[in-house]
C-alpha cells in the first residue's frame, strides 16, 4: 500500500483516476491548484487505486493523503 500525499497546500482541481483503476509510475492521479498554478500529483509506483480520500474543490494541506494505491 502506498499513500500519495499532497506536496503543496491548495485545492483539488481535478481527480484523474477512479477506484479500481490500474496506474503506472508517473501517471497523474490528481491535479492540485495553488496560487493560480496547476500542480499534478503523480503515482510514485505502479498499482491499483484502492481509495480516493478527497473530492474536487476540496482544500488540502501539504502532506494530506489524496489517494491510496495498492
Amino acid at each position, binding site marked *: 500500500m502506498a499513500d500519495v500525499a499532497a*506536496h*503543496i*497546500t*491548495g*485545492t483539488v482541481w481535478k481527480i484523474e483516476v477512479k477506484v479500481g483503476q490500474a496506474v503506472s509510475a508517473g501517471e497523474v492521479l490528481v491535479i492540485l*491548484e495553488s*496560487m493560480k*498554478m496547476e*500542480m499534478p500529483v503523480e503515482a510514485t509506483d505502479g498499482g491499483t487505486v484502492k481509495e480516493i480520500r478527497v473530492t474536487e474543490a476540496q*482544500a488540502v494541506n501539504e502532506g494530506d493523503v489524496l489517494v491510496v494505491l495498492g
Partner: protein
Amino acid sequence: MFRKLLVANRGEIARRIIAVVRGMGLSAVAVYSDADAELPYVKEADEAVRLGPAPAKDSYLNIPALIEAAKSTGADAVHPGYGFVSESAEFATACKAAGITFVGPPAEAMLRMKDKSVARGIVQAAGVPVVPGSEGIVPDVASALAEAEKIGYPVLVKAAGGGGGIGMTVANSAVELEKAFRQSSDRARAAFGRDGVYVERYFPAPRHIEVQILGDHHGHLIHCLERECSIQRRHQKVVEEAPAPLFAGGQHAALQARLFDAAVKAARAFGYANAGTCEFLYSDGEIYFIEMNARLQVEHPVTELTTGLDLIRWQLRIAAGEHLTVMQEDVRRTGAALEFRIYAEDPVKFFPSPGPLKVFEPPTGEGVRLDSGYGAGNLVTPNYDPMIAKLIISGATRAEAIARADAALSAFKVEGIKTNIPLHLRILRDAAFVAGELDTKFLDKHAKA
C-alpha cells in the same frame, strides 16, 4: 474630483491605491474575500466591505457584488487595479450603468483591444509593426506552408480560438510544419470547436520591451518612456526595469524613437484614455507590437521612480475628467529603477508556497521602496497569485540600483513561507544580468541554483 473611491482589488495594489486616494483627501473603500479579512489594505481603508468566499469568482470577479459594495458605501468611483476585473468591459459598463466612474479606459477601447486579431488589424492599419504572420485563419497545410515561406522559419503554429499556450507548436522546417499543422488543428477542433490555425514568426529568445501610455479624455495622449521586462519565467515577469538595458548608452536610439512612435500610434488607434501599456517584442534589431494592456501594470513603479510621475494619481485625475497637464517634452528620466516581484514560491523548484508569514522584515535604505500586500502574522493563502510584495530599487545609475538591490534583498527577512528572494540574488549577481544582456529565455540559461 470624486469624494469616495472603491478599490476593486486586493493585496499590494489595493494598499497602494488606498494610500494615494487618502493622500488626496478622498476616502477609500476596500473590498475583501473571506481569505483576506486580516490583510493590511482592509484595515488601512476608511471602510471595508466583504464580497464573499475566497474563490475569486465569488469575490473579486463577482461584478454584482462589487457594484453593490460601491452603491452601499456611496462610492462615486471604482479603481480596478490590475488583474481581476481590470480589463473587463462588462465591469466598466456595469459601473457606468450604476452611475459610478470606472478608473480606466472607455469600455469601447477595451473591446477593441480584447480580440487579438482585431487589435492586430487596428494597429497595423495605424502603421505599427506587428509580428509577421498570417492575416487570418490558415485553412489547410498547403496554405500554411505558403505562409511560412513568406514569414520565414521558425514559425509558431497557434490553434484558432486558443489561448494560454494551448495548441501552440513551434516548427523549424516544412516537414515539422506539416506535423504541427495537424496537431494544432486537431487541438483547435477538440478544445475550441474551430478548425484551422494561425501561423506567425517564432522568436526563440526575444526581449520584452513595453511603453507606458497616459492619455486624458480630451484627446491629449503621451508616452512615459519604456520598461524592459525580459526576465520571465513561464510568461510571468520576475524582474522589470527602466530604462531598458537594450537602449543603454544610446544604443539603438533610432529604434527607441520608432518604439515610442509606434506605442502612441497604437494607443490612439484604440481610442485609448487613462493609463495603459503597449507591449513589444524585440528581436534582431526590430520591434514588434504584441498587445496593449488596458490597465495599470504591476511594474508601473519603475516608471514612477524614474520619471517622477505618480501614475495612480494621474489615473484618478484623468478619470475625474481633468486635463493631463504633462506634455510629452516634460517626460524626462532620471536614474534607473529595478522591480523584483517577491513570490511565495520555492526558489529552486518553483512550487507555490502558501503559509503563515511568521517573520516579515522588509529592508529599508536609500532608494528602497516596498509595495507589500502582507505583514508579519498574515496568512498567505493558496487562493490567489503568489506575488506577496514588490521590492523596487532606484539609483542614479543601473549599477548603483543593482548594488542597492543586492543589499536590500540580502537583508529582507521572511520566515514561514518560501520566497524567490534567493532567485533574485542569483539573477542580480549573474554577469549577463549585470551587463544588461537579457532575453525572455534568460532563466533557462542563467541564475541557476
